[in-house]
Every structure is written in structure tokens, then in C-alpha cells.
């Protein structure tokens, strides 16, 4: 396996030097830029996807993690490269949605990129340790009103943080927010007792079955995977009618605007493998998926996120105008 991988890389690299002038795309390794730290859900999802697409295209896809800096350095690093399809960006809610909506950024997701695929999807849920005295969402509300609970999120400005902020503003609560870098790290922190409650994703339960317990789903827009992973758990709207809760968590691939249409078409064709049953069976249990292919449909998906988050952020006084 190792040897084959190495040999493939070497062969591709050598192929370059033989001077084939206008060879077929792709003729050399592709770089996939991920704006999250290694080991988190976004990273794991990106790596699984890269492996599957790499087999389709016949060249290695190297995942490069460029975390931090409000996702701006990672996003900009893609725009610094040529629009030749050899640098792909793993877009996510912060880089394509929350950060551009809340602060001035040197790029426009819709104009500077061609987003052609969306795969990872998620909704958030509020978790406690399995042995926590908080049995129900109502217990939690009571506790949160009497003292300032510490809440773990992955990164400030990421969807779990926004869910926490929305929860706080809807119910008039105050939290001590602790950022723990990734969703699995947030759950580890929760289990280790560093935070009282933690915001994770619906499927997060699968990786920590015996150690954490869901209290409530932080999304009123029920999806099929809610019942699959968290059967019987209510959403905010079901527990407290009239209270708002919504998230938009999607992740996928984009290339720099200006990339030739043939290359985008090839990439779209290669990502078709991602919807197959064989691929889905290989996916880690901690991640949910909702596949969208093609530039038009992905564009509509992105617009739906902007439509969801703009009023929420505006209400919190965070929308960048």
C-alpha cells in the first residue's frame, strides 16, 4: 500500500518532466486545503472524500491543514494559486458563510470561487456528561438560570458557537464559553470535566456513546438523521414552542473562479462517486452527509445559508454591513 502510494506519486511527478505539453487534467498531485486543524470532523471528512476522489482521478490528493486566522489565510492561500484545478478548497460554514457575514474579508465566496460539491452536513445538539445531574433540557435551563454554566464549543464563530449564542439569546442565558478547537476535543473536554455542557453535532454521539448524553437538538428543521442518531430527543422548537433554533452546516469543495469549465466538469464527475453506497458505507460514524453535486445546486445551498444566518447574526448585532 505504502509503496504503491509512493510509486504513484513518483510516477506522476516524473510524468511531469517528460514534457507532455498539454496532457489531460489531472497530471500531477492535487492539493486540498482544509481550514481546520487535523483530527476534527471537517478534517476527517475531507480526508475520506479526498481518498475516494483521488482513486477516481488517479492522482494523489494531499490534504493540507491551515487552521486558524478565522479561516482567512487558508481561503486566501487557494486564491493565490493558479486557477488550474490543482488546488481545491474544502469550504465550510465559517469560511464561506459566518466569517464573510461577520467581518470584512479579502474575498467573496460567491465571486472568487466556483463551489461544485457539498457533502458533509450536520446539525448541532447540546450534550452533557453521561453522569451529569442534568437529566432534561428543563433541568439545564433551571441550572443555567441559577449559575453561569461553562459551555464548550469548537471554535469561536463556528456553527456550534453560533448555536450556543442563539440558545443564550433565545432563553436569556449567560455562559462561560470555552473554545476547544475541534468537536471531538470539545467532547473530550466535556468528559474530562472542563466544561458543564458542550455543543456537538448530532452524529457526535456515535463516537462517545457511553460517555455523553444529549439534552436537546439545537435545530428546529428536522432532518432524517436526527431520529437515526438521537431517537426521541426533542428539538428546541418541540421543547419550547416559539423558540428559534437553526443551523446551516455544510461542507464541500470549491476551486478558484476562472478554472476552465472542462476541469470543473471533470471534478464534478469525479465527485459523483461520493454519493454511492460503497462510499457511504466507509464513512466514519461521527459525520452526517447530504450530497449536492454541480455548481448550480451548490450555489442555491449556499444562498440558503446566507438567508438563514443573516437575520440571526443581525439580531445579535454581529452582521457585518
Amino acid at each position: 500500500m505504502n509503496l504503491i502510494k509512493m510509486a504513484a506519486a513518483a510516477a506522476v511527478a516524473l510524468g511531469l518532466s517528460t514534457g507532455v505539453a498539454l496532457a489531460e487534467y489531472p497530471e500531477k498531485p492535487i492539493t486540498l486545503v482544509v481550514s481546520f486543524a487535523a483530527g476534527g470532523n471537517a478534517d476527517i471528512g475531507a480526508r475520506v472524500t479526498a481518498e475516494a476522489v483521488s482513486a477516481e482521478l488517479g492522482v494523489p490528493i494531499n490534504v493540507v491543514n491551515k487552521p486558524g486566522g478565522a479561516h482567512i489565510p487558508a481561503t486566501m492561500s487557494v486564491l493565490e494559486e493558479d486557477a488550474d484545478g490543482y488546488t481545491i478548497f474544502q469550504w465550510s460554514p465559517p469560511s464561506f458563510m459566518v466569517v464573510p457575514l461577520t467581518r470584512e474579508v479579502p474575498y467573496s465566496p460567491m465571486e472568487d470561487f466556483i463551489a461544485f460539491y457539498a457533502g458533509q452536513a450536520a446539525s448541532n445538539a447540546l450534550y452533557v456528561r453521561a453522569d451529569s445531574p442534568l437529566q432534561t433540557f428543563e433541568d439545564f435551563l433551571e441550572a443555567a438560570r441559577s449559575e453561569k454554566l461553562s459551555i464548550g464549543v469548537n471554535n469561536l464563530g463556528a456553527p456550534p458557537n453560533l448555536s450556543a449564542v442563539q440558545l443564550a439569546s433565545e432563553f436569556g442565558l449567560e455562559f462561560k464559553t470555552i473554545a476547544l478547537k475541534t468537536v471531538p476535543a470539545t467532547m473530550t473536554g466535556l468528559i474530562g470535566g472542563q466544561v458543564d455542557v458542550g455543543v456537538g453535532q448530532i452524529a457526535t454521539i456515535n463516537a462517545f456513546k457511553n460517555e455523553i448524553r444529549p439534552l436537546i437538538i439545537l435545530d428546529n428543521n428536522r432532518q432524517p438523521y436526527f431520529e437515526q442518531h438521537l431517537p426521541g430527543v426533542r428539538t428546541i422548537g418541540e421543547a419550547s414552542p416559539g423558540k428559534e433554533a437553526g443551523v446551516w452546516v455544510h461542507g464541500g469543495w470549491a476551486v478558484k473562479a476562472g478554472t476552465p469549465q472542462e476541469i470543473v466538469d471533470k471534478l464534478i464527475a469525479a465527485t459523483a462517486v461520493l454519493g454511492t453506497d460503497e462510499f457511504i458505507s466507509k464513512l466514519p460514524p461521527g459525520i452526517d452527509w447530504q450530497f449536492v453535486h454541480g455548481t448550480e445546486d451548490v450555489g442555491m445551498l449556499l444562498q440558503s445559508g446566507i438567508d438563514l444566518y443573516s437575520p440571526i447574526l443581525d439580531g445579535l448585532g454581529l452582521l457585518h454591513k
Partner: protein
Amino acid sequence: MLTQRLANIVFAILVIVACAYFAVVAQGFEAAGLLASSGLPSRFFPQLLLGFTALCAAVVLYVYASRGEAGDEGQTVFASSAEARRGLLALAAAVVGYVVWLNFGYVVMALISGPLLCLAMGVRNPVIYGVVLVLAVGVYLVFTQLLGTQL
């Protein structure tokens, strides 16, 4: 020759001035959004460190200025003027190499930075120039052919 005493006095003063400058800049830090209640403002930690560093620099300055026990009395920064010239010219050659890379690309940088450094070090033996260039080609080939780095 530049003595350790003089050089350290100048360095300590520069550090204090730089600390003051950065501390002033830090006054202007603004939180982007109130997504979390943060216990300390953004400027606290850098300013704390700047104060600490400046304090240490002040002690170092005092020790050198008062001719106290600094441990390197009478020593010079460079052992000889020839060493100073080689070190500083090598530094300049490295910077020139980087600027060349920015403007003319990797290959030009790789070709000229080696000989430039050799010149800076005062190398007269042509064999050394040859060996350095051969090694530069080797580095280029290893990265482009074996690793697929685009240079």
C-alpha cells in the same frame, strides 16, 4: 571593534523602544464580535509580556551601562573584522536571495544565492563554486522530481 558592552546597550535600548511601540499599538485592538465572554481583553497578554520584556531589557541595560557583572567585559561581538564582514555579507546575500526569489522565481534564486554566499565568505577556490552549484541542482531535482513540489 564593536564591543559586547556597546552592542548590548544599543540592543537593550532598541528592545525597550520596540516594546513601547508595540504596547501603544496594542491599545488599538478591537474585538471583532462578542461571540464569547472573554475574561481578559486582547491587549492584556501582549502588554503584559512587553512590560516584562522591557523590564528585563532595563536590567540588562543597567548591568552593562554601570559596568557591572555582565560576564563578557572587554569582549567584542565579532572576533575580527574579517569575520564581521563575512557574517554580515552572508546575511545580505541571504536577503538578496529571498528578494530575487520574490521577483525572478525559484530557479534564478537557486542559481545565484550559492555563488553569492561564497563571494560573501570570500571563497576563491572555483571548485567550491562548482560543488555548491551541483548541490543546488540536486536540491532542485529532489524537490521537483521526488516530492512533486512546484518551484
